[in-house]
C-alpha cells in the first residue's frame, strides 16, 4: 500500500480523529489514502507526519484535519458550532472494511432506515421515502438534499415515541458529510450529526461520527451509545456490500427514486475526477469524463 496518486483525493481535508482522543506526547500511527501517517499531540498543538514530511494541520471543530495536497477550499463552515447551548459529542472512530465513499453514500440513504435500523430510525410498516429535493450548490461546492421527511419510531436518544423527522443532508467534501435533523426536544431547530470519514486505503475506512446536538436530558453516554448503535448496524451492511468499491460506471448499480442524493453524489465525484475508493471503469471512460 502506498499513497494514492489520485489528485482529487489528495487535495482534500481529512479528519484523523477528535483532538481530545489523542494522548499528549505519544505519537499515534494511523493511515490515510494508502499511506501511514503519525499524529502527535503536544501542549503547543498537533503535528502530522506522512510520506516523509510534515503535513498541514487544522484543529477546526476540535478535530485533527490534514491533507497531502492543496485543498481548493478551507474546511467548510458550520454556523451551529457557535451556538452556546449545543452539546459537542465525539463518538470515537470505528473501523469499517469498506470504501469511504460507500460510507458516505449509506449515510445519505433514507430508504434503508426501516430495514437496517428497524423500529429505531424507520418502521417496516412505513418504508416509503417521500419526495425530496437535491441540489449541487456550486458557490460552496456542496451537495444538499432538503425537505426529507421520514417516520421514525425512535429518532434520537431523547425520544419518547415516534415522530416525523425532518432531515437535510449536506455533503461538504467527498469523504465528509452531515445531516440536520429535528431534535425531539426542540422541533424548531436542527441537530447536526456529522460523519467524517478517514479513508485509510481504498477498502478500509475509519468513521468519526461527531454530533452537535440540542438535548438537555440525555447523558453523553446515552447519546454516544445511540449513535454507535446506529453506526454498527450500518457497518455490517457496508462490509457485505459488493462491489466493495463504489461503482461510477453507468449500469453497475441501478438507482431507485429514493437514491436521488446518491445519483447526484456519484455525478459530483465524477465531475471531480475522484477515483480513490471507486471501482475501476471497464467502459473506457476515464475519470471525470
Amino acid at each position, binding site marked *: 500500500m502506498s499513497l494514492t496518486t489520485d489528485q482529487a483525493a489528495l487535495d482534500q481535508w481529512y479528519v484523523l480523529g477528535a483532538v481530545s482522543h489523542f494522548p499528549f506526547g505519544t505519537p499515534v500511527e494511523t493511515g490515510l489514502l494508502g499511506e501511514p501517517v503519525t499524529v502527535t499531540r503536544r501542549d503547543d498543538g498537533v503535528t502530522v507526519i506522512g510520506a516523509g514530511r510534515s503535513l498541514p494541520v487544522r484543529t477546526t471543530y476540535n478535530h485533527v484535519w490534514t491533507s497531502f495536497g492543496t485543498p481548493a477550499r478551507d474546511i467548510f463552515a458550520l454556523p451551529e458550532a457557535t451556538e452556546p447551548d449545543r452539546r459537542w459529542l465525539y463518538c470515537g472512530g*470505528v473501523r469499517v472494511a469498506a470504501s469511504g465513499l460507500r460510507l458516505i453514500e449509506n449515510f445519505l440513504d433514507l430508504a434503508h432506515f426501516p430495514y437496517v435500523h428497524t423500529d429505531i430510525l424507520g418502521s417496516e410498516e412505513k418504508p416509503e421515502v417521500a419526495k425530496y429535493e437535491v441540489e449541487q450548490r456550486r458557490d460552496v461546492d456542496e451537495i444538499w438534499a432538503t425537505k426529507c421527511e421520514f417516520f421514525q419510531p425512535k429518532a434520537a436518544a431523547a425520544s419518547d415515541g415516534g415522530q416525523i423527522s425532518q432531515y437535510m443532508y449536506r455533503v461538504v467534501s467527498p469523504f465528509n458529510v452531515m445531516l440536520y435533523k429535528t431534535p425531539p426536544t426542540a422541533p424548531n431547530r436542527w441537530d447536526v450529526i456529522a460523519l467524517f470519514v478517514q479513508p485509510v486505503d481504498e477498502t478500509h475506512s475509519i468513521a468519526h461520527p461527531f454530533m452537535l446536538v440540542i438535548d438537555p436530558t440525555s447523558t453523553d453516554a446515552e447519546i454516544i451509545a445511540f449513535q454507535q448503535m446506529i453506526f*454498527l448496524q450500518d457497518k455490517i451492511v457496508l462490509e457485505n456490500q459488493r462491489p466493495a468499491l463504489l461503482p461510477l460506471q453507468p449500469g453497475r448499480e441501478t438507482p431507485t427514486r429514493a437514491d436521488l442524493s446518491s445519483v447526484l453524489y456519484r455525478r459530483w465525484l465524477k465531475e471531480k475526477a475522484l477515483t480513490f475508493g471507486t471501482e475501476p471503469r471497464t467502459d473506457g471512460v476515464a475519470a471525470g469524463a
Partner: protein
Amino acid sequence: MPKLYDYVLSGSCYKVRLMTALLGVTYETQAIDFYPGREHKSPAMLALNPLGQLPVFEDYGLVLRDAQAILCHLANRHDPAGTWLPRDQRFGQVMMWLGFAGGELMAVSAARMVSMLGYPGDLEALRAKGRMAMRVIEDHLSDRQLAGGIWAVGDTPTIADIALFPYVMLSHDAGIGHEDYPAINLWQRQVRRLPGFVGMPGIPDYF
C-alpha cells in the same frame, strides 16, 4: 428493579440483555461510555467493579460482575423450572462452556476491539486464538448435530448457548467470517428463533 450498567456494543453486556429478554425479566439500564470515554474505568464504576469491566448487574441488593456469573444468577432467580441452568448431570457441561465463553472465546472480543476500535494489540495473534476457539465450538456443535442434537448441552437451550452466542456472532467484526463453520450456522439460526430473542448492532435479526 434490576439494573444493568450497559454498553451497547459490548458482546458481554449483550449476553445479559439477551438472557433477560428470553426470561422476560424487566430491568433498567444505565449507558456507560466505554468507548471512547473509558467510563468503565471511572472511580464510580471501579467502586462497583474493581476490575473495571462491563457488564455490572444489580439485583436483590447484589452487585454482580462477570457476564457468566450474571447468567447463572438470572437463571437461578428467574427460571424456577431450571431449564436454562439444569442441576442434573448437564450442570458441569454448562459450567464448562461458560468458562470457555469467558475465557478462550474472549480472544474474539479482543481481536474485535483491535480491528474495529483501533485498540492496541497483535491482531493476527488474537485472530488465530479466536479461530481456534471458534473451531472448538464448531467441532462440538458438529458432533452434537451428528448425534441428532442442536444445543451446546442437552436437548434444550441453556445459558451455555447464550454465553457462546454473542462473540461467535460478532467474530466478523474481528475479521473472522463464518464460511468455515456450518454447524455454528445451523445452531445460530436456532438461537435466533428462541421466543423473546433480541439482536444487537452487528447481530441483526434479518440475517
